[in-house]
């Protein structure tokens, strides 16, 4: 075979290879931006979604951790990327907060929501020898400023979850000040060492410390009891006032995705997020599955945006 024949053959082959692929999304690798560090809950869940979605779409999906700025860097990059379906991203609870606190104009309208896959309610923890919820609230009423609470950053979901418990029961959030920390682990350590009195965090984060007998849950800020912890009453059951605060994670694309691409992704995600593999993984890691399709997810974020705005105003962080 001469060189020119070889070239012609190669050309023909490559044309054959390209022709059908060009008509159909996706024909090359997809980037999935995770705005939080490798090893965290968002990274872990994002990677499992990527692995399963890869099989479904038949193209590799590169998970990229774009960290920094409390998630702003990654969230911004997702919203700025070309809306061609080759850059997707995991968006998280914090997205509902940026524009309220004035750190970034980003909000849910900068994205084409694809699917919500996880939501975990915040729960209130004290040391195992600590007070029950009524005694705790009485203590806060009697000695404002004495009880310190922690769980994560200032104005994060854990903070708002705690502030909501106080405001729905007629207590000024300043009566039990929030000590910001780098995350649930750091706060639980402060609680176990006896430096503070209360921690609010999600149940998967606190579970090892509960098993260790170091801390106990008092209430969970959820609409109904959590399957994994049926003994823990909801805020409404324990205190009579309804209050729910969920930390959530979903998958989204930059605004302006072509309809056919979006339809393909929504269909693939529907299969992935309802698959046995995914639900099994989430159950093993104690993550709550809350699957909502594109339309429901958009409505969900709309609601979250409004209620978080109220909560941030209550603790004086909204600008």
């Amino acid at each position, binding site marked *: 075979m001469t060189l020119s024949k070889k070239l012609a053959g190669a050309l023909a082959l490559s044309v054959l290879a390209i022709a059908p692929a060009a008509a159909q999304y996706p024909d090359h690798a997809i980037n999935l931006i995770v705005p939080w560090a490798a*090893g965290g809950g968002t990274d872990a869940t994002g*990677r499992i979604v990527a692995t399963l979605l890869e099989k479904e779409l038949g193209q590799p999906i590169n998970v990229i951790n774009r960290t920094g700025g409390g998630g702003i860097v990654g969230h911004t990059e997702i919203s700025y990327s070309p809306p061609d379906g080759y850059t997707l991203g995991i968006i998280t609870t914090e997205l509902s907060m940026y524009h309220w606190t004035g750190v970034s104009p980003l909000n849910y309208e900068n994205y084409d929501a694809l699917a919500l896959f996880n939501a975990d309610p915040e729960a209130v923890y004290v040391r195992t020898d600590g007070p029950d919820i009524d005694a705790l609230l009485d203590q806060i009423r009697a000695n404002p400023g004495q009880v*310190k609470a922690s769980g994560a950053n200032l104005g994060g979901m854990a903070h708002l979850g705690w502030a909501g418990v106080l405001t729905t029961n007629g207590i000024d959030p300043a009566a039990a*000040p929030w000590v910001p*920390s780098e995350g649930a682990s750091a706060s639980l350590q*402060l609680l176990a060492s*006896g430096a503070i009195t209360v921690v609010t965090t999600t149940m998967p984060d606190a*579970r*090892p410390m509960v098993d*260790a007998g170091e801390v106990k849950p008092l209430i969970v800020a959820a609409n109904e009891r959590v399957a994994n912890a049926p003994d823990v009453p909801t805020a409404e059951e324990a205190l009579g006032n309804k209050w729910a605060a969920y930390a959530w994670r979903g998958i989204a694309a930059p605004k302006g995705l072509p309809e056919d691409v979006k339809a393909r992704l929504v269909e693939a995600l529907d299969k992935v997020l309802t698959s046995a593999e995914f639900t099994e993984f989430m159950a093993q890691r104690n993550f709550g599955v809350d699957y909502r399709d594109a339309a429901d997810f958009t409505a969900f974020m709309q609601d979250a945006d409004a209620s978080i705005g109220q909560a941030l105003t209550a603790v004086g962080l909204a600008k």
Partner: protein
Amino acid sequence: MEAFALAAGLVFNFETLLTIFMAAVFGLFVGAIPGLTATMATALLVPITFYMAPIPAIAAIISCTAMAITAGDLPGTLLRIPGTPASAAYVEDSYRLAQKGKAGLAIGIGVVGSVLGGLFGFLFLLFTAPMLAKAALGFSSFEYFWLAALGLSCAALISSGGMIKGALALLLGLFIAQIGMDPLTATPRFTFGNLELMGGISFIPVMIGMFAVSEIMRSGRRAMAEVPQMNLKNPFEGTLGALWKYRKNQVRGSIIGSLLGALPGVGGDLAAWITYSLAKRTSKEPEKFGKGHPEGLVEAGATNNAALSSSWIPAMVFGIPGDAVTAIAVGVLVMKGLDPGPTLMTLHPENFYAVMIVFAIANILMLPLGWVAAKSARWIFEVPRALLNAAILLFCIVGSYSINNSMFGVWLMLGAGMVAYVLEARMIAIAPIILGIVLGPLVETNFTTSMMISDGNLLGFFGRPVAAVFGVVTLLIWGVAIFQTIRGILRKDNNLRSASQFPS
């Protein structure tokens, strides 16, 4: 004992041993590539562990991490690119040793010292893990603050250019640590509205730039590295002799490493710095430190790996991961149904022991793999320096880019390299800057947290028994150092005066 036998059965089978070996080789490669970190190696391994049985899965993570961290000393020794914050403490000594033609000895001390430190950590933990974990849990921000403050004072000790230049370098490091959003209230500082700066200055690009790029700039015009060749038959020659000579450092480093390593989030990074400066402080020849002296290398290397073993304790016993690597490992543990937490010790002690045995095996594996790596390292000195520099720069760029997947890291690395070049030309050491960047956020976070808890009362730092002891010890050490400095200045003054009174 029955649990131990069960555990041995879980580990000593073909599948697990093969996994350990392959993960170790993988870790060796990733760790030995400058700029790629143990965290990255672990994160890359996670999707593969999805398809493994529980014990091999966790064994893969452990042996990969342990190997990657030890292998991170290779580029440190050969190219002056430290692999981890901890190895930045002693990179100057190992690099200078290599430049003297003793690369084999430097790697040998690193590897053998790490193995001994790691095995010591293993034995230590086998008996004290639950107690140690419980003790670590009693540490709050008040105790951490004093530990971090004590760590900062190491800067003055490790600086080769004298205390004042060390303090200056430390302040520069603390300033760099300030850039970005403040860790607790997310207030932007020195960011000028720039999104990249809001994410803060990543540690790895700065470290790579300060150590490696500045060295490239210095050696750039030399055609060949004028480095004497090391012993080719046995690259580790002289290692055992050095370890025996400094056996006291080896033991002390291992003990301190095991204890401090158990403190989540602080231990690993801090311990090697503390023991390095301790070695210098107690050495008979402190003037040789930072110029290619094995003593500090022995102690800090042992500390590093002992701390590495015990950093898994809070993660396994309470599910509190101290760093990104253990956080990933906790994720894998949970996913495989080996819930970290006390139940791991009580309900399934065999799993816990299996994890410990994997540690021991991974540590022992370092010996042959490290030997091979050291033996093949010699080609580095046969490459013309100009070509080698080009390759190093390439690795530096890839490494700094990969931290956040952005060009910002690359610019940061180049900028840091130029700053370090100027500073080193003025005899200002780099190590304290790195220490400042590592410890700055720790000191700050724990100070602010403590102040919020104690409503701004500074006496709160002495309000808890352990914190009070730490506080008094730290203040005493500072007091003695200041007293000695002042006495030294006064004496110099007197000498000058007496000299001027009696002109010769």
